[in-house]
């Protein structure tokens, strides 16, 4: 630490503007970036499922016919596929979210560790989807 250094005088000359490159099909996101965008996509999918879930919940509670209608609908093959997607959304959001909470607390913030935990979170979510999905289907 030199006593002479002042933050202003040490400043390097301004950099030329950085290229803006937003061609989504050609950007190669690193793994933590993939986990991040999937965290977002899974969140949006679950938000869209909220009103349908609330409606089905109300229907299933209110009467036996309502319950049969709700469960009958949930058991149709196409809906089961959607439920599997939601199951993955929940699990990916869960494990990626736990990873973010740990990073907020200061764990696994450096690049190598961040890459490892990104792979770990996405991997556990996929494996758990297969296991829980087995119970679902």
């Amino acid at each position, binding site marked *: 630490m030199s006593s002479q250094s002042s933050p202003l005088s040490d400043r390097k000359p301004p950099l030329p503007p950085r290229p803006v490159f937003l061609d989504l099909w050609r950007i190669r996101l690193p793994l933590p970036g993939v986990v991040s965008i999937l965290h977002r996509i899974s969140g949006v999918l679950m938000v869209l499922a*909220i*009103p349908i879930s609330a409606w089905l*919940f109300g229907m299933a*509670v209110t009467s*036996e016919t309502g319950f049969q209608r709700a469960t009958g609908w949930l058991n149709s093959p196409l809906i089961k596929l959607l439920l599997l997607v939601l199951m993955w959304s929940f699990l990916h959001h869960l494990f990626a*979210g736990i990873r973010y*909470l740990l990073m907020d607390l200061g764990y696994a913030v450096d690049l190598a560790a961040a890459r490892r935990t990104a792979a770990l979170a996405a991997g556990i979510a996929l494996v758990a989807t297969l296991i829980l999905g087995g119970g679902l289907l």
Partner: protein
Amino acid sequence: MSRQAAGLKAWIIQRLSAVYIVLFGSYLAIQLVFAPPASQAEFVAWVAAPLVALGLLLYIPLLLLHAWVGIRDVLIDYIKPYELRVGVLSFFALLLLGSGVWAIQAVLVARAMLSGPGITG
């Protein structure tokens, strides 16, 4: 939400609600996937059980708050025209609020059914 604290407050809300959602959401998912109720009576009995009902009544507003902060961030990132942004944000706000009221109402209906006369398992 005051303008100055909006960012930090939302950040804290998102993390605190996440902790509860992880715990109770996992319980709900495991319960419904591995031991789904076979009839309405069974379902109502489960929903109306004191700890489940209390858990749900906490879960619903916290989940909706979490969903709102999340979808708000996404919409603000991707929708730039002001009128459209306000319109879509309002739409989701109403959708989530309506869902929440509907779900809370269902929990209370289940409670009333279980304690009311004439309903036996």
